[in-house]
């Protein structure tokens, strides 16, 4: 069996989604942890130090390329999967099964993912792109990201977009977290229900903490 055959089969495509999805989840843990430093009550000193650590080493910069690849593969495969799956039923039903059979968010992974993608484009253009281009794409001088956050999040519409982005992320992960483990072959019901609960807890906490960042800056808490 060739690698190309494995990863282009229906199960293999899902494997790609699950593996990249879990990789992106591990990135979220790092990201939310570093950003939580804004609440250190020191006018961003600790946060800027953490951000400096992430911006001043080639090791991290190489990992960043891996992260980009993870995102791209997940997004492209996710959209391809969504459209291929939709094409399998050309004539639809008059009356749909809807929520009687499955949760709305489990049926909306493509939509939720696309909302996350739109959010990501805005988010990267506000922080990542300006900072990295200021650095000359190498290890040059960084922007003061804490100050940049404060100005960015002084606008209400930006805060609303961020909160909506976190909302989409939360529902995407409530399904995605446990789904990824099923895709990887965890079939023991005892572990599946544990994973499901951990997934819900993770999704809600991470999304809430992310959403509180723009909110607390807008309200002047930090």
């Amino acid at each position, binding site marked *: *069996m*060739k690698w190309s055959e*494995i990863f282009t*089969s*229906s*199960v*293999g*495509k*899902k*494997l790609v989604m699950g593996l990249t999805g879990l990789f992106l989840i591990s990135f979220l843990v790092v990201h939310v942890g570093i950003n939580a430093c804004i609440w250190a009550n020191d006018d961003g000193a600790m946060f800027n130090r953490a951000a400096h650590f992430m911006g001043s080493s080639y090791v991290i910069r190489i990992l960043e390329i891996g992260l980009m690849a993870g995102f791209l593969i997940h997004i492209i495969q996710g959209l391809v*999967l969504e459209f*291929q*799956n*939709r*094409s*399998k*039923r*050309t*004539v*639809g*039903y*008059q*009356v*749909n*099964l*809807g929520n*009687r*059979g*499955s*949760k709305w968010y*489990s*049926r909306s*992974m493509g939509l939720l993912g696309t909302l996350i993608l739109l959010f990501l484009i805005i988010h990267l253009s506000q922080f990542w792109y300006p900072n990295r281009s200021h650095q000359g794409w190498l290890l040059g001088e960084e922007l003061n990201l804490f100050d940049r956050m404060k100005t960015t999040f002084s606008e209400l519409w930006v805060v609303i977009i961020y909160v909506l982005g976190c909302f989409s992320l939360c529902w995407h992960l409530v*399904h995605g977290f*446990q*789904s990824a*483990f*099923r*895709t*990887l*072959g*965890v*079939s*023991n*019901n005892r572990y*599946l229900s544990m994973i499901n609960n951990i997934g819900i807890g993770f999704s809600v906490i991470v999304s809430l903490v992310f959403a509180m960042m723009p909110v607390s800056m807008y309200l002047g808490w930090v």
Partner: protein
Amino acid sequence: MEHYTMNLNLKVWKQKNAASKGKFETFEVKDISSEMSFLEMFDVLNERLINEGKEPVAFDHDCREGICGMCSMYINGRPHGPWHGTTTCQLHMRAFKDGDTIVVEPWRANAFPVIKDLMVDRTAFDRIIQAGGYISVNTGNAVDGNAIPIEKEHADKSFAAAACIGCGACVAACKNSSAMLFVSAKVSHLALLPQGDPERKTRVLNMVTQMDKEGFGACTNTGACEAVCPKEISIANIARLNGEYTMAALSADNSHD
């Protein structure tokens, strides 16, 4: 439960053949007994249509006791109708009230093309079984069923998976038209038993390959299949298939020496 009779409005999908377009037609049926099965209600309608010299509604059925999986009907937006864990032939009219409108559609999936009215072509499932849903045995004397010890938990899980009747409700309910619940039930049934072990790897690889060829979608673990399956096949079987597939694919060796 008290017996009662009812008059109903049926909105039924009519389609001459696979090539024609098809549309909904409305029929009224009168004095339907609450003790009748859903298919018997259709028998009443069809007898009347035949007596009137009209074309009856074509639908599939065979055993009428919930074991053959033929009676595919998508009733009011749910495969096999409103009752949990029930085939259409075991659905009884006491599930409905006088004056109800019931919408009846065929399974919708490109891999299950409509043959006529409510009948769909489910031979894709047969080809998936032919690709690996069996064990190879030598003929001869029947082997003592208890000759090989089998772990109780595996035997139970295998038996539960073997209850799948190949009805296709899982495909009909799935937003991706995925056949994974069906295929995973067949794979699990055999993978959990020692008799299925020698062909374990080729089975899962070949069945998934055939499933993809037939034009079913990829599973996204929504759970709609499990919710409508008349035999209550567990979605955990899909996770088992994923694991079986991954192990078989990763351990396959390309060299032939």
